[in-house]
């Protein structure tokens, strides 16, 4: 079948409108949006959406430990994946979170930022649309290339993968808050190879995966994480780093 020129024009107008909608709606100013949209979201359809709550301090007091929180509860039951990144970081990606059925689409984590940067959290819903939440963090900078605090501590290897954590009961879920001992070396410091946690799974007592999390070295050393899980059942966190070390903690 052949489209006549009028249909083509219509399509073109639609595409233009789509583009305009994307660019105009951006709540933060970023020269990197198109790049990350192509690279991380494969250029797929998206909307800037205030219903994705992305919370971060306006100024990073410590650029190596910046708390951020993503809350996509507005799309509860519809969320397939949540991607987060810091647009101007040398290593932009922070996490790729697949919450599954029993884990709420909310995640808090601490990250490193190299300079003042827009932060994004893109939420993929079942209809195939990315809902993008945005915020801006000001910073003095240097969080990604500063010397490691962990490695300066004697005997850090002994504590590698140790998890400090607690479970808090909330109205609609339990909040799992934990910290994992790991240097999260990002390979940007000379002579120290990449060494970071890159996989995490929250599993129930029978070993079923409740949620999957891929981590990137924009996450702070000794990563701090909060997840929210429904039900009272026991959970176990499984972690693996890029060297193949595996860690487990019951929560």
């Amino acid at each position, binding site marked *: 079948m052949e489209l006549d020129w009028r249909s083509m024009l219509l399509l073109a107008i639609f595409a233009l409108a789509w583009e305009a909608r994307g660019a105009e709606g951006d709540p933060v100013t970023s020269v990197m949006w198109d790049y990350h949209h192509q690279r991380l979201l494969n250029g797929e359809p998206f909307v800037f959406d205030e219903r994705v709550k992305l919370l971060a301090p306006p100024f990073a007091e410590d650029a190596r430990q910046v708390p951020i929180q993503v809350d996509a509860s507005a799309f509860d039951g519809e969320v*397939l994946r949540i991607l987060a990144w810091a647009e101007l970081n040398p290593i932009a990606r922070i996490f790729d979170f*697949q919450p599954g059925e029993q884990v709420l689409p909310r995640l808090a984590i601490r990250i490193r930022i190299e300079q003042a940067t827009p932060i994004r959290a893109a939420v993929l819903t079942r209809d195939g649309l990315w809902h993008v939440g945005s915020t801006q963090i000001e910073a003095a900078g240097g969080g990604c290339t500063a010397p490691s605090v962990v490695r300066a501590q004697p005997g850090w290897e002994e504590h590698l993968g140790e998890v400090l954590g607690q479970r808090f009961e909330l109205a609609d879920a339990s909040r799992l808050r934990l910290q994992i001992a790991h240097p999260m070396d990002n390979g940007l410091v000379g002579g120290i190879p990449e060494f970071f946690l890159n996989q995490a799974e929250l599993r129930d007592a029978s070993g079923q995966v409740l949620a999957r999390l891929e981590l990137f070295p924009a996450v702070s050393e000794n990563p701090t994480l909060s997840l929210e899980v429904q039900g009272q059942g026991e959970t176990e966190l499984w972690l693996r780093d890029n*060297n193949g070390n595996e860690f487990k903690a019951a929560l």
Partner: protein
Amino acid sequence: MKHSGFRKPFVLSALCAAMLLPGVSAWAVTDQEILDDVKTTDQIVTNGMGLQGQRYSPLSILNTDNVKDLRPVWTLSFGGEKQRGQQAQPLIKDGVMYVTASYSRVFAVDARTGKELWQYDARLPDDIRPCCDVINRGVALYGDLVIFGTLDAKLVALNKDTGKVVWRKNVADHKAGYSITAAPLVVNGKLITGVSGGEFGVVGKIEAYDPKNGELLWTRPTVEGHMGYVYKDGKKIENGISGGEAGKTWPGDLWKTGGAAPWLGGYYDPETNQLLFGTGNPAPWNSHLRPGDNLYSSSRLALNPDDGSIKWHFQTTPHDGWDFDGVNELVSFNYQEGGKTIKAAATADRNGFFYVLDRTNGKFIRGFPFVDKITWAKGLDKNGRPIFDDSNRPGAPGGADKGKSVFSAPAFLGAKNWMPMAYSQDTGLFYVPSNEWGMDIWNEDIAYKKGAAYLGSGFTIKPLNEDYIGVLRAIDPKTGKEVWRQKNYAPLWGGVMTTKGNLVFTGNPEGFLQAFNAKTGDKVWEFQTGSGVLGSPVTWEMDGEQYVSVLSGWGGAVPLWGGEVAKRVKNFNQGGMLWTFKLPKDLVAKH
């Protein structure tokens, strides 16, 4: 990165899976390819260029006539601030070279262009305990995995295309002094490794793992008195104490920290279906603390690859008091005598003697010195046991700080150290990289402390000659005759390879990769690589041309332990390069 979410993987029907299998084996390294490596010329999938470790290539495109036209085609730098000894042998599969570098690093390189495809840097703890430089001797290939051992005594399996970790297993506790530097080998679907750590009083062991997932299959301690195990369906089953029981050849509790580390890995003989491994020195070095033969230190062991049981052993230095590790490669070879084929195996020991054994039962056939000076023994008896010269064993401290010091040759670094020799199927000769040196050695008191050096000896190493230490020797294993020798000023520390093109290749610490006429010993080619050559050269055929590769990068044990020898090598600079040479097609035609 693409994700499939929580969808369950598709279940393939049996038919479907069966159809896919041939496609898989087209690129995956199989047991058959490993067995055939000795005769294939377009890839190298074993350390030793064949499971027997003969380091002989049937290629003859490159030969004594045209080797002068051998020329570099690419080099690759291992980079990093820490340039240390490079001792690996490259493996090549499907146009990709897999090689390890210092500090437990692995590189995958396009074998045609030298372009790096991926690099894996193991994140090592700060308290690794390598005795003798942070080297590594290479990878094993199996299926789509690249597998190697690390300085913190782990086995790591990487995906051959991405370099990402597929599995990782702890083999032993690095805090107790264990490490791994040798290349593992794969035999009949089992990944076999030894461990290092004899200078720290570890208990040596040889272990087999499932290469697909890193599950432990069996473990065999190399010190008398320790139980071996096989693992079946998650159960640990006793498989006999090494040597039958404790206390037969060791006094008191010393077997519990007895060393005998099989740190150089081993080889496999398909004809007799046995693993051939060597074991290191007994711990501590001070022999007066441990009267007895101290089995199975300084020995060669033949193991059943199915369960790790010991079929036979041959101890080259019973009750070692000079650090004469027995790890040097035991190379299987056959020869004709009186109309019969003798299934033999040969080894050139640290202690200065060359041994030819019957590899079907470990019986001694003959032995002879392969260096000019041996002081610690007067010779070998009819069973191959050394006839000690008791006046040349360093004395017991006996309450003093130091026991009587003696001058001993060879030195503790050995008449030959780790660097593998080669056996030519054409000349019937072994090409042995040897060193002429001696040492003053004395004993001190020592007590075991976990993770601390456990020697009880002091020593200083000395050259025996002004103008050379290293000697590359061509040795006839049937007569003990030295057919030719080539001297080298610095100690030789690199592996040897020989080819059907009547060539012998090896490198020296001065930085030259050299080729010799296998029959006459004449030097026919050399090339300066920029740093000392400690690696083992390989050769293979690609696109109709013959290639040669070797690592360059000075380091290893000599500059660390070198005593007076250190003076000879102090101006050798460090490096860290992978060199690849070829003989261009048009130049082959010209000759």
